[in-house]
């Protein structure tokens, strides 16, 4: 390849990268806009909207709700998903592949469908006010990601380790707690982190199932934008990006190479 062509390719790469991150850049920069309306580029810079956003009771409440829902939903999803994955590995039945591919393909069912379905379900039992519908909605939405993560760990787990443990006198429950689960831990932790990120950012399904008191942060932000155009919401979005990035870095630490569990994969 000649030099001008390499230059063109590089330019194109930079443009694509810019295109992808442009919205985030716009949001982050306009969060520092001094006037009480969003504009890009800002006329004057100030961090004041961060203080405004942090002092906003709707955002405070939304953040607390989001964390609460995230902790419950991703923990429940990890428990259900791990149990499901182990059970699936140990059983053979007609339609196993079908069930597997259905569970593992969250995109088949749109998020709003699940939100709407859960809303209708909980209206019937008069429980729309509490956290139950929100947590259930998020658990269902993040479950495929947890299962996928645990599945990969299970796939790399040598069955003979469990056989060896049971030959040494370990009852099935001890095999599970001393061999299977510790070796699945990277997958479980990774799955939990992904579930947490997804739950924390979920909007489409959540908007159907939240009530005044259980409103999560993305829903609170949406409501705020409908009534006001001040940069406070951009400041919250900036904080959102920062938190998510930290969590993703944590996820890489657990799932990336060097987890110390690159086991022998011969079958």
């Amino acid at each position, binding site marked *: 390849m000649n030099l001008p062509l390499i230059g063109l390719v590089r330019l194109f790469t930079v443009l694509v990268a810019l295109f992808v991150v442009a919205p985030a850049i716009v949001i982050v920069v306009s969060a520092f806009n001094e006037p009480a309306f969003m504009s890009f580029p800002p006329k004057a810079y100030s961090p004041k909207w961060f203080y405004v956003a942090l002092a906003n009771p709707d955002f405070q409440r939304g953040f607390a709700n989001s964390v609460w829902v995230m902790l419950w939903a991703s923990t429940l999803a990890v428990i259900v998903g791990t149990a499901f994955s182990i059970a699936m590995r140990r059983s053979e039945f007609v339609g196993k592949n079908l069930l597997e591919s259905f569970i593992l393909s969250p995109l088949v069912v749109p998020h709003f469908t699940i939100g709407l379905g859960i809303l209708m379900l909980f209206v019937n039992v008069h429980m729309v006010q509490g956290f139950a519908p929100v947590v259930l909605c998020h658990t269902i939405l993040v479950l495929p990601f947890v299962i996928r993560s645990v599945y990969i760990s299970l796939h790399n787990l*040598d069955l*003979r*380790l469990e*056989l*060896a*443990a*049971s*030959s*040494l*006198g*370990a*009852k*099935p429950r*001890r095999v599970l707690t*001393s*061999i299977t689960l*510790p*070796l699945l831990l990277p997958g479980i932790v990774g799955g939990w982190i992904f579930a947490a990120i997804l739950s924390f950012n979920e909007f489409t399904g959540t908007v159907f199932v939240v009530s005044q008191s259980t409103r999560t942060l993305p829903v609170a932000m949406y409501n705020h934008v409908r009534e006001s155009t001040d940069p406070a919401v951009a400041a919250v979005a900036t904080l959102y990006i920062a938190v998510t990035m930290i969590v993703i870095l944590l996820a890489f630490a657990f799932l990336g190479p060097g987890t110390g*569990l*690159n*086991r*022998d994969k*011969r079958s």
Partner: protein
Amino acid sequence: MKQVNEATFRPASSAAAATKISVGLDRVSKSFGAVKVLHDVCLNVAKGEFLTLLGPSGCGKSTILNLIAGFIECDGGEICIDGEVVTKTPTFQREIGIVFQNYALFPHMSVRKNVGYGLEMRKVPRVEIDRRVERALDLVKLADYRDRRPKELSGGQQQRVALARALVIEPKVLLLDEPFSALDKNLRGAMQVELKEIQRKAGVTTFFVTHDQGEALSMSDRIVVMSEGRIRQVGAPEQIYNRPADRFVATFIGDASRFSGLVDEVDGGRLKVMIGDTRLDIEARESSCSRGQSVDIFARPESIRIVPDGAPDSIAGVVRNVVYQGGHVDAYLDCEKMSSSPILVRLAAATGAALQRGQRVGIAIDAAGTSAFPTEKF
């Protein structure tokens, strides 16, 4: 041969009374789907015996190991360990030690934790666990590696940890599933000697699964030769090698050259066969041979000698190829009238060097180590 088979094929239930029997299989059968992998296998193993299950892949040897371990259940028959029927006993109550091909060491535990795992499951006091783990690590000469993780050890060291882990619980039976196949050739020989030594010291009944006949011949007290889910022969290594029970065993174990011949006379346990004009008096393996029947005669490379062309009682042959093997020479001879495949003769290096390709020679066969089986009809 016949009486040996009857003795070893005694049903386990009647033999269980005899205290020396450690493991007994009584008419055990197993199918995977429509494929029957074991056909009514009977086998009794004495306490402390080193028994090898040998056969090509798919012969059912690993299935026997898995059945004894309790990883799978048999469809029919009974398995006894120390006189107790364990057919329905779960693995964790069977008190067996197992060493897998890939060792299956727990990657998240240190060597010491790996070896102590079985004792911990038995709720042995901490102090005694430490003492017994140290003793086991001394036995396999790995005391200095107690705090390492399995992945920090070489293949041979991992294997010794696996062995220590299996032996420390003082199992009733030790099961070895092709433990040497992942080691390189030099280490393999050393580990075979070491393993046999450790097994003898521990005095534990051992089942060893392999498809490597060299390993089987050098390590075993007895060998069980299997094919297609059936036991073909049970016997000491010399017996298997020198007196194979059927043509499968004769060809599967060691090298054997095949000659075509005719039965001239059946005389009790002896068989007089003719290879061309050469008469050979050999031990009968199968009772079904009758006068005038055509047979295949299998001779070991050590049982074949090269004599001058035209010597009395020799078969005419032509040297086709001479292969230098270091300590000895393998000569391949053509003997078209009497054999459709080349005849292998093993010679001292000096003798072999004198042979020329195309040279006409005489072939003499020793009766010892030579077997005859009826020609297969197709």
